[in-house]
């Protein structure tokens, strides 16, 4: 009995050793990326002065309820878009509308199958009309609209940066920042 308990404790200690060592490995990797200048951070992108209504852009069937809407632009030929879409297939989207750019419908459908997104839940921007309306120059990028006004426009280097927007905390912070700067201007 005592031997079994002692062995269990030793295994638990080894488990803790592995977890802590692994966490340090992740930190080291972050440090390497920071030193090499490849640490990903969202960067702002050009935001259009006015955006046509999402209904007029053919997104009416995908529009979420509420005043705040997120429009995420992905393309089928970018690696980050692939990993973000794969993560999206596992979580609730909240106020998100996904727009995917691709050269043809066949590529779009096979990409959706690969990443696990149902094609009917995303918008295939075949003619680039939606991307053009938002002046999208880089993918993946996300635009936050509040009362048809673009509140936030930024790149999305990885799904980690999209998560706060999906759970609402990033949306609140972006809107409150805009409100504060707006009242400051006035």
């Amino acid at each position, binding site marked *: *009995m*005592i031997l079994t*308990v*002692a062995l*269990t*404790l030793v295994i*638990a*200690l080894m*488990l*803790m*050793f592995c*977890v*802590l*060592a*692994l*966490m*340090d*490995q*992740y*930190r080291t*990797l*972050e440090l390497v*990326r920071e030193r090499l200048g*490849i640490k990903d951070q969202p960067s702002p992108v050009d935001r259009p002065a006015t955006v046509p209504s999402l209904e007029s852009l053919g997104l009416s069937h995908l529009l979420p309820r509420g005043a705040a809407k997120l429009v995420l632009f992905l393309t089928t030929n970018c*690696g980050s878009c692939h*990993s973000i879409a794969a993560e999206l297939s596992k979580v609730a989207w909240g106020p998100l509308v996904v727009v995917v750019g691709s050269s043809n419908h066949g590529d779009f459908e096979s990409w959706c199958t690969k990443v696990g997104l149902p094609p009917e839940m995303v918008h295939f921007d075949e003619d680039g009309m939606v991307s053009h309306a938002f002046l999208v120059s880089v993918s993946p990028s996300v635009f936050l609209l509040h009362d048809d006004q673009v509140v936030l426009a930024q790149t999305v280097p*990885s*799904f*980690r940066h999209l*998560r706060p927007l999906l759970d609402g905390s990033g949306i609140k912070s972006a809107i409150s920042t805009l409100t504060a700067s707006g009242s400051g201007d006035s």
Partner: protein
Amino acid sequence: MTVVLGIVQVCAALILVTAGIGKLAVPRDFGATVRDLGAPVRLVTLTLPLLEIVAGTLIVADPTSVVTAVLSGGLVCAFAWAGGTALVRRRLMVCSCFGGLSRGALGWRQVALLPAWSVALTAMHAIGPGIRGVQGVLWLTLAIVVTCTVLAVRHRDMALEAHRAIEELAG
């Protein structure tokens, strides 16, 4: 009261064990702290974490023994000395108390441990321990597993990000 003392014992043991394992798993930062304090680096970086693990285990396995009191009391005195040294020298020294887990500074916190630990030790001897023996070791094991799970869940994003970064770097 026994339940409260049992919880205090498990918490104290978990802190000591986590500190010991943390220093063994990531010895880099702790070595720098020992060097700053002017203590023998090789000796301290190996023996202190092991003593912390042994003391943590003894706190739940044999809490009222003289060995436990001397060992844990000695460790707390050593921590207080380190904190006091940093305060006297007025130098910012990284604690590395939990290896890579903490980046706090050495100072008052380590000094304040001394009276807090003395009170806990006296209470344990006066009232009697909450847990001991096999039961204590099992509770400590459970606490370690829960801590590992919490740490793994809290750092899940970091793990996913690291995985993605490696894939990107590999092209």
